[in-house]
C-alpha cells in the first residue's frame, strides 16, 4: 500500500523506509514516524473503537493526550495493550493490532451497543440488574466484564528488565519546548546543574510542529541547535523519551525514561525503561498546552481531530489525514492550520469559525459565525453539515476536520500536591494557581503564555528567577526573534443538539450524559466525574475535562470556575507497572541471606527454607529417605542419642558495651540482668511498652561492661531499632554503645550427650569444658583449632547438653566441616529447622508461633519473670486488668488421646462436650509436630486457665481442615521436664 497521504518536507528520515504491520495489513513508514503518522500517511484513519458504544475511532491528537487511537503494540510476551498510536515510535518490523473489537476493526459486532445507546445512559447500571440478587454474579456481571476492558494482557511474564535510578540537580526542567529550551540554555550557561526532560523522542515541543521562524531559521532547526549546545554542557543532562510522571514532596520528581521502547527488543543487559527519582532544588514546569475540542453531534468520527494535531502531522510528519480538510474553530489557531495545509498543497475546503470577527483569507473559504451540526461517514469522515450564520445549512465533503476550542495549559503536575488551577477569562482556560508544589515554578504555554516569543522569554525569566533564588549568577544568552501573536478567542464549548455529542470520546460520555447527571443531582464535579465516568479513561481527561465542566456550568447556570476543576493525580501519563518494580522481581524481590554453612549444606543435599530473609537448612535427606519426616525424625533421635550440629547464625547478635551496659539491659528486659555474673548467660524476655512480649533471647556477659545479646531471626532488626530508641531517647545519659554483629560470627549449635566430647576435640589446650569449669549457662571467649578466636556459650534450645560456638564468619564453612569430621566417631548429624522445631516443642520452648504479638509473659507461663523491683519497658502496662485476667490463656502441652491423631497448629480448643461455636472457644494450638521420642504427635497451645487444667481431656476442633477429636492437656515440658540432660 502506498503512502498516499505523505507530503513533502517534515522531520522524518526518508532514507530509512521501514515496514510494519497493523492488524493483518502491511505498510511502509519512515524513521521519525509514529505509528499514527505512518498509518495516516498510508491513508488509514480508523485505528480503534470506543469503550462503551464501540464507535469507530481514529487519532484525535498527535501526542500523549490521545483518547482514541489506542492499540495493542507488539505480540507475544511483549504485548502492550492500550498503547497510544500517537506516541509509538515506529521501528522496522513493528507489529500492532487493534483492540476491543470482534471480529474485526472495520466490522465490530459490539457496535450494536451504539444502537442501544439510549439504554446505556450515564449510570444506568446503578438502576437495574438487581433482580434476582443471585443473577448479578451469575448472569449480568460476567456479560458486563466480558464486554468491558480495553486491550488484553499477554498473560506471560514480562521478559524485559527495568531499572531504578537516582539523579540530583539544581534545576529540573519539565518539557523541552521553547520555554524549556530557553530556560535550560539560561541555567546551563550559568553553570547550574540542569536536567531537561521531555516525553517526546525529538526535543523541541511545538517548535517541531509549527512553520514560523525562530531566530531566522525554522523552529525545529533552532531547537535542534539548542539541544546540541545543551548536550555539550557537562552540567546539563538532556533526557528525551523521559516523562516526568509525578511531583512528590520536597522537590522529588518521578521520571520514566523509555530506554528501549523504540526498539523491537532491548539490547542485552539494558532495561526497557528506567524510573528515575530526581531530587531537585527547583523545578520549572514547561509542559506546554493541549488543544481542546468543541463538542458537536457525531464529533467523534475518524478524521476529526485537533487542528494542532493536523498541523503537527502536516509539518513534522509530512502527512495529512485526508486530501480535503475542513476546520472548525473559535480562535485564530484553526487558521494557522489552514494556512499550513494550503502551503503543503492540501485542499482546505472551508474554515468554519464561530466568531463574528473571524479573519478572512484568500487561500480558503471562511464561514464566520458558522457551526457544525452534523457529520457523516461510518468508518471515517466523509461529509460535514454546517449551520450557516444566516440560517440554512451547507454540506461539505471532506475527509478530515480540524477542531479547535482553544488551548488548556498542561497544569497537571501543579496539582500533584493539592494545588488547584484558577480560571483565566482572557484565555478562557485554567492556569496554574499560586499554590504550586514548593520549589516549582511554571513557564510558557503551561503558564498561559502561548506565543513563541512569550514562551522563550518566560522560560528564560523563570530560569533567571530560580538562579537568583539559588544564589547562582545568571549569564543570560540572547533570545532569538520569534512570533508574538496574542491569543484571540471567543469561548465556544458545544453546539446544542438533541442527539449525541461526545465530550469524553474514549469512555463515550456525551453532553446528554452530563445533563442527565445534573438532572439527577450529581452536580459536584467529583459526582459528575464518577457518575458519568467523564475523564476516567486512559487519557485521564486531558481533552475532555474542561468541555465537561463548561457544559455542566451551562446547565447548572454557574460560571465554570464555580463548578470547579478536578484534581490531576500521578502519574501524568499511564506508566508501566514494571518500571516501578525495577529489578525487584522473581528471586530478586528481596535480598537473600545465606548462612556460613550454606555451601557445605548444599553439598549435603539439604532442603532449604525461607526464614526472615535467610535461607536455612530445613532437613538433610539421607539416601533412601523419601519423606521429610524420615530425615527429621532421624536428626532428632540421633541428636538426642549422640550429637547434632545446627547453623544458628541467623539469630540476631547485638554487641552491648559501656559502663551502663548492665543497667541498660535491665531496662529493656523485663527480668533482671543487672546482677548477671561475668562468664554467664541468661534467658531474657523483652516486652513492648504495651506489656506484650516483643522478643526473647539470651544475654551473655563477656565482661563487666560487655554483653552479647541474641534475638530471634525474625525480630533482629526491630529489636536493634528498639534498643537504639531506648538508648538515645529514653536513657540518653547511659554509657552504652550498640552495634550489630549478626553477620560477623558464624554460630553453630552443638547439641547432644556427646557434644562435650566432640567440642573437646577442637578446643585448644587449657580450655576446660568439664561441667564444673563450664557449667550450664556459662560463656567464654576461647581459641580452637590451634588459635582461632571463638566464643563458646553453654545454652540449649534442644534441651540436651548443648553448646553454641561462634567463630569469625569466614571460618564457618571450615568449622562445620571440622566438626562433622571430628564427630564421625559419634555419628554426628547435622540437623535442620524441622528437627530444631521438634526438639524445642518437646521442651516447651517458645518461638514466633507463641510470641505472636498478642501474648504476655503471663500467657507464656513466665509471669513471674516480670520484675516489679525495677523499671523496665512494658512492665507497667502489663498490669492492666485485661492482661492479667484470672482465666487468661496459658501455655500448655497437648497430646492426642488417640495416639494416631494429629494435633494440628491453628486448631481451636473447646471444653469437652461444648458446642463448637465462637462463644465456647477456649484457646488455640500454636505449634505442633510428631515427637519421635514420645512416639506421637504433640503440640503447644494457649488454653484459658491452662496451667490449672493439666490432665484434663478437651476437645480439639479445626472445622477448616475437618479435625475434631480429644486431646489431653499436659505440661509444655514434654521431654526431660527436670532439665537433667542439659545440666549433665
Amino acid at each position: 500500500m502506498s503512502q498516499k497521504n505523505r507530503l513533502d518536507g517534515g522531520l522524518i528520515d526518508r532514507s530509512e523506509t521501514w515496514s510494519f504491520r497493523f492488524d493483518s495489513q502491511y505498510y511502509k513508514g519512515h524513521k521519525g514516524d509514529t505509528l499514527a503518522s505512518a498509518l495516516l500517511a498510508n491513508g488509514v484513519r480508523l485505528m480503534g473503537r470506543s469503550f462503551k458504544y464501540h464507535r469507530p475511532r481514529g487519532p484525535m491528537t498527535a501526542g500523549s493526550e490521545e483518547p482514541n487511537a489506542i492499540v495493542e503494540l507488539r505480540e507475544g510476551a511483549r504485548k502492550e495493550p492500550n498503547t497510544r498510536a500517537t506516541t509509538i515510535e515506529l521501528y522496522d518490523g513493528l507489529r500492532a493490532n487493534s483492540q476491543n473489537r470482534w471480529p474485526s476493526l472495520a466490522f465490530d459486532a459490539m457496535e450494536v451497543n451504539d444502537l442501544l445507546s439510549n439504554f446505556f445512559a450515564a449510570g444506568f447500571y446503578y438502576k437495574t440488574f438487581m433482580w434476582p440478587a443471585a443473577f448479578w454474579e451469575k448472569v449480568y456481571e460476567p456479560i458486563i466484564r466480558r464486554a468491558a476492558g480495553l486491550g488484553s494482557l499477554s498473560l506471560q511474564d514480562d521478559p524485559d528488565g527495568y531499572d531504578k535510578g537516582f539523579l540530583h540537580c539544581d534545576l529540573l526542567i519539565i518539557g523541552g519546548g521553547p520555554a524549556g529550551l530557553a530556560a535550560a540554555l539560561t541555567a546551563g550557561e550559568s553553570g547550574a546543574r540542569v536536567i531537561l526532560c521531555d516525553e517526546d523522542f525529538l526535543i523541541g515541543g511545538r517548535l517541531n510542529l509549527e512553520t514560523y521562524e525562530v531566530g531566522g531559521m525554522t523552529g525545529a532547526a533552532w531547537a535542534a541547535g539548542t539541544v546540541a549546545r545543551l548536550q555539550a554542557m557537562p552540567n546539563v543532562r538532556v533526557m528525551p523519551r523521559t516523562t516526568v510522571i509525578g511531583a512528590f514532596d520536597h522537590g522529588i520528581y518521578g521520571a520514566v525514561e523509555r530506554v528501549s521502547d523504540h526498539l523491537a527488543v532491548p539490547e542485552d543487559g539494558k532495561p526497557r525503561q528506567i524510573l528515575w527519582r530526581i531530587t531537585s532544588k527547583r523545578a520549572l514546569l514547561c509542559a506546554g498546552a493541549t488543544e481542546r475540542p468543541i463538542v458537536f453531534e457525531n464529533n467523534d468520527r475518524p478524521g476529526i481531530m485537533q487542528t494542532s494535531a493536523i498541523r503537527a502531522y502536516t509539518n513534522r510528519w509530512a502527512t495529512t489525514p485526508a486530501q480535503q480538510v475542513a476546520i472548525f474553530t473559535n480562535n485564530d489557531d484553526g487558521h494557522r492550520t489552514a494556512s499550513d495545509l494550503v502551503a503543503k498543497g492540501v485542499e482546505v475546503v472551508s474554515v468554519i469559525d464561530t466568531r463574528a470577527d473571524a479573519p478572512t483569507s484568500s487561500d480558503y473559504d471562511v464561514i464566520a459565525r458558522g457551526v457544525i451540526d452534523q457529520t457523516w461517514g461510518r468508518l471515517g469522515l466523509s461529509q460535514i453539515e454546517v449551520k450557516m450564520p444566516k440560517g440554512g445549512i451547507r454540506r461539505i465533503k471532506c475527509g478530515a476536520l480540524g477542531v479547535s476550542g482553544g488551548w488548556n495549559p498542561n497544569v497537571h503536575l501543579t496539582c500533584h500536591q493539592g494545588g488547584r488551577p484558577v480560571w483565566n477569562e482572557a484565555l478562557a482556560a485554567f492556569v496554574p494557581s499560586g499554590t504550586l508544589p514548593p520549589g516549582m515554578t511554571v513557564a510558557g504555554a503551561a503558564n498561559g503564555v502561548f506565543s513563541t516569543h512569550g514562551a522563550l522569554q518566560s522560560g528564560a525569566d523563570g530560569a533567571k528567577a530560580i538562579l537568583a533564588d539559588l544564589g547562582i549568577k545568571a549569564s543570560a544568552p540572547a533570545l532569538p526573534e520569534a512570533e508574538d501573536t496574542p491569543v484571540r478567542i471567543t469561548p465556544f464549548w458545544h453546539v446544542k443538539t438533541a442527539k449525541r455529542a461526545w465530550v469524553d470520546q474514549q469512555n463515550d460520555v456525551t453532553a446528554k450524559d452530563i445533563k442527565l447527571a445534573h438532572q439527577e443531582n450529581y452536580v459536584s464535579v467529583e459526582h459528575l466525574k464518577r457518575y458519568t465516568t467523564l475523564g476516567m479513561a486512559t487519557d485521564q481527561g486531558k481533552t475532555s475535562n474542561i468541555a465537561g465542566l463548561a457544559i455542566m456550568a451551562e446547565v447548572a447556570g454557574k460560571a465554570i470556575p464555580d463548578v470547579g476543576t478536578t484534581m490531576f493525580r500521578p502519574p501524568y501519563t499511564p506508566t508501566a507497572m514494571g518500571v516501578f518494580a525495577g529489578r525487584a522481581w522473581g528471586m530478586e524481590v528481596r535480598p537473600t541471606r545465606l548462612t556460613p554453612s550454606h555451601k557445605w549444606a548444599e553439598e549435603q543435599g539439604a532442603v532449604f527454607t525461607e526464614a526472615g530473609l535467610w535461607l536455612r537448612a530445613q532437613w538433610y535427606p539421607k539416601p533412601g529417605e523419601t519423606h521429610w519426616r524420615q530425615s527429621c525424625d532421624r536428626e532428632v533421635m540421633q541428636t538426642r542419642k549422640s550429637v547434632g550440629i545446627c547453623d544458628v547464625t541467623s539469630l540476631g547478635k547485638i554487641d552491648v558495651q559501656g559502663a551502663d551496659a548492665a543497667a541498660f539491659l535491665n531496662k529493656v528486659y523485663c527480668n533482671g540482668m543487672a546482677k548477671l555474673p561475668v562468664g554467664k548467660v541468661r534467658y531474657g524476655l523483652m516486652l513492648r511498652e504495651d506489656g506484650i512480649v516483643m522478643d526473647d533471647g539470651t544475654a551473655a556477659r563477656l565482661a563487666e561492661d560487655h554483653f552479647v545479646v541474641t534475638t530471634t531471626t525474625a525480630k533482629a532488626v526491630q529489636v536493634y531499632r528498639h534498643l537504639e530508641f531506648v538508648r538515645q531517647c529514653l536513657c540518653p545519659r547511659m554509657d552504652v554503645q550498640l552495634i550489630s554483629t549478626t553477620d560477623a560470627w558464624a554460630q553453630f549449635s552443638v547439641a547432644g550427650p556427646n557434644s562435650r566430647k566432640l567440642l573437646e576435640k577442637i578446643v585448644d589446650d587449657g580450655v576446660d569444658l568439664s561441667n564444673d569449669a563450664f557449667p550450664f549457662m556459662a560463656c567464654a571467649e576461647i581459641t580452637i583449632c590451634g588459635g582461632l578466636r571463638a566464643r563458646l556459650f553453654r545454652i540449649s534450645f534442644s534441651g540436651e547438653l548443648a553448646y553454641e560456638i561462634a567463630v569469625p564468619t569466614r571460618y564457618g564453612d571450615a568449622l562445620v566441616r571440622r566438626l562433622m569430621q571430628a564427630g564421625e566417631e559419634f555419628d554426628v548429624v547435622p540437623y535442620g529447622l524441622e528437627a530444631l522445631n521438634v526438639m524445642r516443642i518437646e521442651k516447651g520452648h517458645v518461638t514466633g508461633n507463641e510470641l505472636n504479638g498478642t501474648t504476655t509473659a503471663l500467657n507464656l507461663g513466665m509471669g513471674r519473670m516480670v520484675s516489679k523491683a525495677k523499671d523496665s519497658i512494658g512492665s507497667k502496662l502489663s498490669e492492666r486488668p485485661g492482661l492479667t485476667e484470672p482465666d487468661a490463656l496459658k501455655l500448655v502441652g497437648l497430646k492426642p488421646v488417640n495416639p494416631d491423631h494429629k494435633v494440628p497448629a491453628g486448631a481451636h480448643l473447646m471444653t469437652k462436650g461444648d458446642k463448637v461455636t465462637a462463644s465456647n472457644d477456649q484457646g488455640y494450638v500454636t505449634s505442633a509436630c510428631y515427637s519421635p521420642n514420645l512416639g506421637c504427635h504433640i503440640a503447644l497451645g494457649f488454653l484459658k486457665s491452662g496451667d490449672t487444667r493439666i490432665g484434663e481431656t478437651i476437645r480439639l476442633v479445626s472445622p477448616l481442615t475437618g479435625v475434631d477429636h480429644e486431646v489431653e492437656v499436659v505440661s509444655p515440658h514434654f521431654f526431660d521436664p527436670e532439665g537433667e540432660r542439659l545440666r549433665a
Partner: protein
Amino acid sequence: MIINHPLLGPRDSSEFVYLGDACLINRPDWQADDALDQFIEYGHTRDNPAGLHRELWYHEQGDRSWLVVTRNTVTHEITQVELARDVARAEGRSK
C-alpha cells in the same frame, strides 16, 4: 520526602523508619502514684494535629540516629530537625 539530618544534611526519607509523636520521649516515672494512668496516656493518646507535628524518625539506613522532626502534616513541610538524644537530654532525661 527529604529530611535535613542535623549531621548528614538532606537525606531521602526512605532511609528512615518512622515511629510517631515525639511525646514518646517523655516516658513517665514508673514510681509515680498514678504511674499506670500516665503510662496508658503515654502509650495511647495523641494530639494528632493537622499542622505542625514533632515526630520521631530513625535513620536506620544511615547513622542510626533517632531524630525529632518538626513537620507540617498538611503540607509535609519540615521546619526543624534535631537529634533526639539532644532533645531527650534537654528535656532532662538521664538514665
